[in-house]
């Protein structure tokens, strides 16, 4: 049951690692996120923790994650290899899961490459006589980025299944993710809240729970709440289900 998922995962991960485009995105993302953080957090704000870095991740991911997921199905559709893939003895969900996990693993590998930031912070930039970096929230935040990545990736994979054009897949993925980001984004939430004193707060409270940042922020604070995990799994499962549906519809 799980062997085909693993084979697909392996091939897709190799496809990321064997094509220059994957590295281009990773380097771009790392340069952007790390230098941005170093500049902002260390020189402008002078803060020596990782909060600044992680608070920007949902925005960087808005571009980076759809760039990773855009090729998952579009490339197969374009090359015609979808026909090859779907005539192997496997069930469609195995392909859906394998591709999704390959993207997630690639994302996790990229995030591993940002680990130098907290290490440098803890080792070299610690102010004198100060305790070192508090690793709890950092680890929690890394977990949070994975949860965030899961949601964004499932949306992106679904977008990719809709079209044979990777650019179109990217735009659809980024747009949908933008919606998920926005409805939990604090300024947007307070904007809704201020709409009406009567129902505004209740609506804001309701809507923000569907937003990804609401749950990401809560995990990033180092509080791993089952509700946040359930949210991520539900949204991911829903979009992977849609992805599966789109592929099956073509038969």
């Amino acid at each position, binding site marked *: 049951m799980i062997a085909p998922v693993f084979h697909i995962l392996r091939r897709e991960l190799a496809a990321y690692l064997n094509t220059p485009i994957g590295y281009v995105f990773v380097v771009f993302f790392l340069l952007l996120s790390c230098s941005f953080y170093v500049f902002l957090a260390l020189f402008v704000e002078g803060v020596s923790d990782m909060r600044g870095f992680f608070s920007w991740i949902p925005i960087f991911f808005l571009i980076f994650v759809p760039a990773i997921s855009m090729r998952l199905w579009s490339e197969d559709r374009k090359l015609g290899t979808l*026909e090859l893939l779907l005539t*192997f003895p496997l069930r469609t969900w195995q392909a859906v899961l394998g591709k999704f996990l390959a993207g997630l693993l690639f994302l996790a590998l990229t995030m591993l490459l940002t680990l130098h930031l907290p290490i440098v912070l803890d080792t070299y930039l610690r102010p004198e006589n100060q305790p070192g970096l508090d690793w709890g929230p950092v680890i929690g935040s890394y977990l949070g980025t994975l949860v965030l990545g899961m949601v964004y990736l499932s949306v992106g994979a679904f977008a990719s299944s809709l079209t044979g054009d990777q650019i179109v897949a990217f735009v659809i993925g980024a747009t949908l993710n933008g919606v998920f980001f926005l409805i939990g984004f604090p300024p947007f939430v307070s904007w809704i809240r201020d709409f009406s004193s009567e129902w505004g707060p209740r609506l804001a409270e309701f809507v923000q729970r569907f937003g990804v940042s609401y749950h990401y922020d809560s995990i990033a604070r180092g509080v791993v709440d089952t509700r946040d995990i359930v949210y991520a799994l539900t949204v991911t499962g829903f979009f992977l289900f849609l992805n599966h549906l789109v592929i099956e519809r073509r038969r």
Partner: protein
Amino acid sequence: MAAEVLVDVQGLAKTYGPLRAVDGLTFQVRRGEIVGLLGANGAGKSTLMKVLTCYLTPDEGTATVAGCSIESDPVGVRRRLGYLPENAPLYTEMRVREFLDFVARMRGLNARARRMERIEWAVEHCGLKPKYMAPIGTLSRGYRQRVGIAQAVVHDPDLLILDEPTSGLDPIQIVEIRRLIAIIGQTKTVFFSTHIMQEVEAVCSRAIVINKGRLVADGSPTDLKAQTARPGRLVARLRGVDASNVRKALEGISAWRKSSVRAVPDQGLVECVLHVGAGGQQPEAREVNAAGEAFFAAAREHGWPLLDLHGEGMSLEDAFLAATGHAPRDDDAQDASAAEPAQTKAQG
């Protein structure tokens, strides 16, 4: 000896919107056969193959492959067949070795020794040794097609389904791929589509002709030809006569429907083609004989030195055109020969 039925297709139909791409097909393929699926572009060949490989689901009808139903056990069906989709889609960023290894794993060859053995077999038989480590993206069309066939045979399937394995190849590559199909066909059942007639004559034990999603002919290539083999035209060659005189003399004779005459100046010959019988139908033997006698009489009367007079049977191509309800080729030939006399006159 009747071999086991490997593919059993019953009333299969597949509709794309208003188009019935496959429209009630019923046939069987037995183990060990090499069956060529013939049809014009858009006749439904690829759709049929996509349904048999469970890439598409049929709207009506059923089919079984090696005893597995395409409806209730698509994974079982796919496990038993190897499939080369049209245009041989491949993962171009992978090397041949990596790709075959991936496909072998996907096809359930989990034991390493067995997988290596099968990959070696496929590489050997498909002539891929020189390109074993090459990225697929750098390969020529012919080699890609071989990789496509190699991935279809790597797991030693009962049945091989190849969708236009020779399209887009040069003549040498075509011959090589045909030879490969013939070799594989010695031990496997092969079902492949093509729109090239000679291909069927060259490698198939049986041909199935479909048109607009319906089966129009089914039999061995020789049967197919025999069904339509009676000569539809007579060809005569004369030496040292003037083409326009011959044309004038032949026009008045009613034994044939239409005659065309053209000069072959470099050989000093005049070639006459006599189309016998009503257009679009097989002429009766009597009509053909009468036409021959009438032509011979005319030649004697005018004192033409007759080098050669023979009937031309339909090629498999003509048989195919006739079977798919297209006009037989002699009408095209008329158009071509109508244009030619002017040309030869200018030269003379």
